C-alpha cells in the first residue's frame, strides 16, 4: 500500500496539500498573527495597507489582516465542502441502495426524482435557492447538498443493482438472512471504494461552488473569512490593492487543485481496471 502511494505522485502531492490545509484549519488560531481579524474585529485606520512584514498579505478595506483571514478561511470552505458531501452521501446512499437492490417501482420513482435534480447544474439550483432565502452558509450547504445527492444515489444504485443479481446474494436470501443484513454486509462494502473516489473527486468542485456562491453574495456573509467572499469584497479595490483578491483566490485554486489531484490519484490507484504500469 505504501509502495503504491509512493509510486503514485498524484496522491502524494494532493494528499500532502490536503493535509497541510487540514493542519492550517486546525491550528489557525495559533498560526494567524491577528486571529480577531477573522472574526468581527476591524481596524479602519489601517485600511488597504500593502503586504509587509507586519501584514504578510496586506490589509483589506476595513483594515483586517488578509493573511489571518486566509488562514481562517481554511476552516470554512473545505469544512463546508465535507459537510455537503457527507449530507449528500447520507441522502444519496440509502436511496441509491433502495433503488438498486429493490428495483421495481422504488427504482423508477427514485431515478426519476434524481433525473429532475440532475437537470440543474448544481450551482444554478443552489443559486435559485439561496436567492430566495436569506443568504447564509447554512442555506448554501443545504442547497449544494440537495443538488449533489443524485450523483451518489445513481452511483450506489449501480453498485447495488449489480450486487443484487449475484448468486451469493440469492443464496443468502434462500438461507433466510434478512434483507437489511445482506445490504449491510454485502452491498455497502462494495460501494465504498467508488464512493470514496467520487467524493474526493467532487470535493474540489464543491469548494469552487461554495466560493462562487459567496462571490455572488449569496453564501457566506461578512465577516466570515470565506475565500470567495473575500475576492468579491476586494474586487473594487483590485487595481490599487491587488493583494485583496490574489491571495484568497490562490487559496481556492490550491485547495481545489489538491482535492482534484487526490481524487485523480485515488481513482487511478483504486480502479481495478487500471494497471499500475503506465
Amino acid at each position, binding site marked *: 500500500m505504501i509502495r503504491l502511494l509512493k509510486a503514485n505522485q498524484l496522491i502524494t502531492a494532493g494528499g500532502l496539500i490536503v493535509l497541510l490545509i487540514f493542519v492550517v484549519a486546525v491550528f489557525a488560531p495559533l498560526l494567524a498573527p491577528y486571529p480577531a481579524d477573522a472574526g468581527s474585529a476591524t481596524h479602519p485606520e489601517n485600511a488597504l495597507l500593502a503586504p509587509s512584514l507586519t501584514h504578510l498579505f496586506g490589509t483589506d478595506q476595513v483594515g483586517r489582516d488578509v493573511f489571518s483571514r486566509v488562514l481562517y478561511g481554511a476552516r470554512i470552505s473545505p469544512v463546508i465542502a465535507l459537510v455537503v458531501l457527507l449530507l449528500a452521501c447520507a441522502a444519496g446512499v440509502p436511496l441509491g441502495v433502495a433503488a438498486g437492490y429493490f428495483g421495481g417501482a422504488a427504482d423508477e420513482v427514485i431515478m*426519476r*426524482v434524481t*433525473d*429532475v435534480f440532475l*437537470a*440543474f*447544474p448544481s*450551482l*444554478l*439550483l443552489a*443559486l*435559485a*435557492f439561496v*436567492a*430566495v*432565502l*436569506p443568504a447564509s452558509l447554512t442555506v448554501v450547504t443545504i442547497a449544494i447538498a440537495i443538488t449533489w445527492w443524485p450523483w451518489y444515489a445513481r452511483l450506489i444504485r449501480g453498485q447495488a443493482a449489480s450486487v443484487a443479481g449475484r448468486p451469493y446474494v440469492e443464496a443468502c436470501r434462500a438461507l433466510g438472512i434478512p434483507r437489511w443484513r445482506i445490504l449491510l454486509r454485502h452491498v455497502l462494502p462494495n460501494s465504498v471504494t467508488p464512493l470514496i473516489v467520487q467524493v474526493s473527486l467532487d470535493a*474540489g468542485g464543491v469548494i*469552487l461552488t461554495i*466560493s*462562487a456562491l459567496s*462571490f*455572488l*453574495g*449569496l453564501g457566506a456573509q461578512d465577516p466570515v473569512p470565506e475565500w*470567495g467572499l473575500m*475576492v*468579491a469584497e476586494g*474586487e473594487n479595490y*483590485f*487595481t490599487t490593492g*491587488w493583494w485583496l*483578491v*490574489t491571495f*484568497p*483566490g*490562490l487559496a*481556492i*485554486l490550491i485547495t*481545489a*487543485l489538491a482535492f*482534484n*489531484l487526490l481524487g*485523480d490519484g485515488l481513482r487511478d490507484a483504486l480502479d481495478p481496471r487500471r494497471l499500475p504500469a*503506465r
Partner: protein
Amino acid sequence: MTRYVIRRVALALVVVTGVVILTFVIAGVVPGDPAATWAGPHASAAQVARARQYLGLNEPLPVRITRYFGGILTGDWGVSVHTHNPVLSDIGTAAPATIELVIAALIIGAAAGIPLGLAAARWPGSILDHVIRVGSVLGVSMPVFWLALILQLVFAQRLRMLPVAGQYDPNLMFSHPLVTRTQMPVVDSLISGNWPMLGSTLSHLILPALVVATYPAGVVARITRAQLLDTLGETHVQMVRSLGFPERTVVGTFAMKLAWNPVAAILALVFAYSLVNTFLVESIFDWPGLGSYAAASVATLDTPAIAGITLFVAIVYVALNLVVDLVQAALDPRIRLS
C-alpha cells in the same frame, strides 16, 4: 430506435415538469415584497395593494400553480418585478449574449483541449505529458471569477492590450452601426460584413471567453488523453500500427475516431458548467447576459425573474442532454438496446 426516442423524449418531459414544479416552489418562498417593488417608489398603500392584485399574489395556491403551468406553456413566464418586462422577453434579450460567450469558450476549450490531449497521449510519461496533465487539472480547479479579475487587471488595465469590459466599442455604434439580428454581436457583424465592428466584438470577446474556456479545455484534454491511451492499447489499433501506418496517423486518425464518444457524452455537462461559469464572469466584464440579469434580479428580490432563469437554463440543459443521448444512440446501437 423509435421506441428509444419516444422513451427518451417522454423522460425529458417528465424532468422538465419536475423542474417547473421546483421553480414554482422556489418562486413561492418570497421574502421581501414584490408588490411594493413593482409599484415603485412613489406608490401609496392603495397602489401597492392594487399591484398585489395585478401580480396575482392574493389567489389561493392551487390556482397559482395551475396558472403558473399554463403560463409556462403559453410563453407567459411572469413579469419581471424590476424591469416590468415579461420575463421571457428579458431572457430572450439577455440569453444570446451568454450563449455567444459559452459557445466561444467551448470552441476555444475544444480547440485547445483536443490537441493537448492528443499530444499527451502520443508521448505518455514525457515532460510534455506531465505538463499537460497538471495544466488540465489546473483548468478544472480554477475559480473562474478570480482568473477573470487577474486577467482583466493584467491584460486590460496594466498592459492595455485588450478592452476592459463590454461587448464592443460603443463609439462604433455611430460610425458603423451594428444591425442586430441574432443579438450576438460577433455573429451579427459577421453576417452583415461590418468588419470594424467584428474586430471590436472579437477583441471584447477574447478575455471572457478565455476565462470560461479553462474548465472545458481542462476536461477535454484529460478525457481525450485518457480515452486515447485506452484506445491505443486496443487490438485493432495495434493492428493498424503493425500494418505500417505512421504513428501520427495511428493516433490522429484511427484512435481519435473512437475517442469522440466520451467527449460527446460529457459535452452537455461541460456546457452546463460553463454556462454557470459565465454567470460569474459576466459582472466582471459588463457582459449583458443572463448572469447580469440574474445578479440584478437577486439585488431586487425579483423571484419571477430568478425562477425564469432557472427554468430556462434547466430546459436548455435537458434539451442538450436529450440531443446528445439521441445522437449517441443513433451512432451506437448498444445504447438503445440497454
